[in-house]
């Protein structure tokens, strides 16, 4: 509980994220039960509004971010060959701030209306548009708990971002110049910089919201001359970089795992770095593509259409480079690789629907429908969660010293793949047929019934997949095969130390001469540094 060790904190982050994944998943399941059939009354409209607010907030801030920070914490010092993060105490502080934020958010279920009204979570969606969040429309304290939870976990996130950034800048082992860093370190470096610059607008906006709600301020009060739209700008100038904050570490996992299981070096390392820098830079200039429906001037719409489409270029480069890595490799279809291959397909499709939605006239038709929900779940589940699973199977042996079971891993993969596609492929259809987001039920004659039923059935497969995954993690911890230092015959520094690594990571700090130091060690007759 008082540890400052980067590996323990990393695992704590991940465990915390998994706990909230169960909670956020339960919320999604209840929503899918409610929507499985027309005219259902499983939950009331109010509860449904609370569920989608809490589901979104939980999944973004208390599942995906902690899990990705956890992996960054665990892996970055090992992969750059150092003993801990640059600021270990700040690291512990950041974790506990994030953890406290999650508790604060869920306290709203008990304390939302003070001691009287238990069970009143916020009903404001995860982006909390104004004026819905004003005192007049969000009575009680549940919205305040939401605001404070985001604010506090935001402080934790910025702390983690600063720490990851300065660890990579200042703690690389001897010989590891920027062009010899593993791609995972590069991508997490970019992610950390984006956290520092991207989370802060949200912090500022939440401060303004607190001033409005507690001090009688008028930032978002249209009666006093304030603007509701400026909240949208402030939120999305955080919100869109946030998407890339989540997806860039997912790219990082894919960039480490795909080469190892294709038995080839990553294709186009410098281009991969350049592409991620381009993505990070562009991602700060596209935010208002979430706001085409608010009637911006047409030149503003045109700008945000074009800047959003421009992001497809570096993203496409990354996909081609991953394919180039796999191309003519000796592919090993182990569980981590399966998840990465599925990621490539799904991320591509999610990206293509993204280009569709980035076209303003198309967006006017489908804005606020299930098509949008299907699009971003394709990225967040099909892209990010799949690589997170890949990362679990790939680095679990390093963290525990035991292999995860391959058969159960493949079962998990196929169950989750089927569930994912049943749910999120078919979710596009009711969206195109005009089914709006956030409705708690619909009439039978709308023609959305069959699609929603398929979507809900998919959830069953996803839950089964997750159950197999959790069982696999527990069972393998007890009786998994011993992993040894380097079970995958990989090339980066974390595999040079024991599994699990000692608290000091390396008995002797390593020195590297190429991007694949372990290859050099295993193949002294043909080292990488003679080519790079």
């Amino acid at each position: 509980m008082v540890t400052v060790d980067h590996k323990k904190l990393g695992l704590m982050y991940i465990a915390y994220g998994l706990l909230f994944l169960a909670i956020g998943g339960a919320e999604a399941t209840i929503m899918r039960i409610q929507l499985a059939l027309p005219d259902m009354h499983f939950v009331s409209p109010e509860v449904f509004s609370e569920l989608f607010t809490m589901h979104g907030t939980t999944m973004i801030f208390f599942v995906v971010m902690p899990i990705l920070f956890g992996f960054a914490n665990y892996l970055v010092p090992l992969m750059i060959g150092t003993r801990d993060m640059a600021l270990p105490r700040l690291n512990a502080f950041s974790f506990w701030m994030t953890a406290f934020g999650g508790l604060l958010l869920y306290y709203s279920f008990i304390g939302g209306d003070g001691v009287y009204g238990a069970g009143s979570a916020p009903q404001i969606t995860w982006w909390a548009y104004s004026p819905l969040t004003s005192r007049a429309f969000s009575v009680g304290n549940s919205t305040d708990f939401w605001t404070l939870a985001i604010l506090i976990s935001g402080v934790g996130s910025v702390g983690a971002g600063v720490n990851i950034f300065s660890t990579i800048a200042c703690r690389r082992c001897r010989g590891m110049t920027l062009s010899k860093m593993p791609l995972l370190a590069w991508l997490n470096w970019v992610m950390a910089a984006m956290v520092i610059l991207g989370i802060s607008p949200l912090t500022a906006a939440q401060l303004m919201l607190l001033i409005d709600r507690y001090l009688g301020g008028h930032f978002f009060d249209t009666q006093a001359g304030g603007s509701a739209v400026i909240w949208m700008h402030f939120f999305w100038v955080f919100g869109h970089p946030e998407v890339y904050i989540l997806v860039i570490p997912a790219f990082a996992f894919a960039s480490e795992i795909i080469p190892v299981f294709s038995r080839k070096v990553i294709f186009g390392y410098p281009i991969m770095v350049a592409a991620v820098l381009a993505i990070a830079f562009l991602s700060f200039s596209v935010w208002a593509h979430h706001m085409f429906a608010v009637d911006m001037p047409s030149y503003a719409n045109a700008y945000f259409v074009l800047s959003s489409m421009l992001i497809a270029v570096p993203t496409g480069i990354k996909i081609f480079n991953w394919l180039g890595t796999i191309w003519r490799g000796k592919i090993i279809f182990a569980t981590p690789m399966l998840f990465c291959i599925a990621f490539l397909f799904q991320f591509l499709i999610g990206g293509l629907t993204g280009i569709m939605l980035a076209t303003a006239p198309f967006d006017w038709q489908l804005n606020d429908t299930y098509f949008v929900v299907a699009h971003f779940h394709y990225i967040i589940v099909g892209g990010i969660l799949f690589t997170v699973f890949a990362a679990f199977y790939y680095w679990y042996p390093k963290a525990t010293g035991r292999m995860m079971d391959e058969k159960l891993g493949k079962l998990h993969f196929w169950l989750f793949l089927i569930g994912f596609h049943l749910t999120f492929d078919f979710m596009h259809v009711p969206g195109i047929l005009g089914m709006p987001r956030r409705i708690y039920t619909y009439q039978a004659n709308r023609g959305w019934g069959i699609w929603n039923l398929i979507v809900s059935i998919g959830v069953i497969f996803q839950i089964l997949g997750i159950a197999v995954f959790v069982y696999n993690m527990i069972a393998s911890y007890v009786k998994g095969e011993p992993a040894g230092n380097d079970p995958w015959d990989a090339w980066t520094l974390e595999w040079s130390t024991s599994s699990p690594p000692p608290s000091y990571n390396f008995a002797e700090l390593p020195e590297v001469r190429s991007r694949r130091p372990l290859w050099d060690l295993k193949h002294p007759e043909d080292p990488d540094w003679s080519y790079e």
Partner: protein
Amino acid sequence: MSSIPVSASTEQEWVLPSSGKVSMLCLIAAESVIFAIFVVAYLYYIGKPTSGPTPAEILKVPIIDTICLLSSSLTMHWATRALRHDRIKMFLLLWGITLALGLKFVEGTATNWYWMIHDRHFTISTSLFGTTFYSLVGLHVSHVIIGLTGLSLIFVLGLAGKIKPKHFESVDIFSYYWHFVDAVWVVVFTVVYVISLHGIQV
């Protein structure tokens, strides 16, 4: 294969930047974005309030406070230089002056706010202008107060004889924060007392 052997062939210098400096610069970057958002809100809302006094009716330009705060950056710079050259007494003197100048700035703001709130009944909830004005200036002053807390801490430690030239780097890193707070004041001053006071619409 528990560790990678250090090859003797590359015994060249391996120097990376100081993590304290990098982290402080990261923090400053994050803070800059927070200030930027508040500045954008302030600029966007000039001329928009539907009631309450205009900036010209209520604002008094804090010339002396501004001179105090900006010159405190200079005294702090000299103070850290004195510390590096092991002139502790000079360091303490200049550090004390920096602290006094910072306190004068906060005192000036407090007096001004007391006059506006107590005598003119102009508060954060009076109008949209009140909200943006008190938020932006208040956000800055709260950073000055955080800075003064750190300044006092180092000053007290210095009086107790605990600050030595080997602490130069820590003191220097802290001084980045203070210079940042000063630089933000230049922006806030321009936005509030130049642009909005003269009714320039953005």
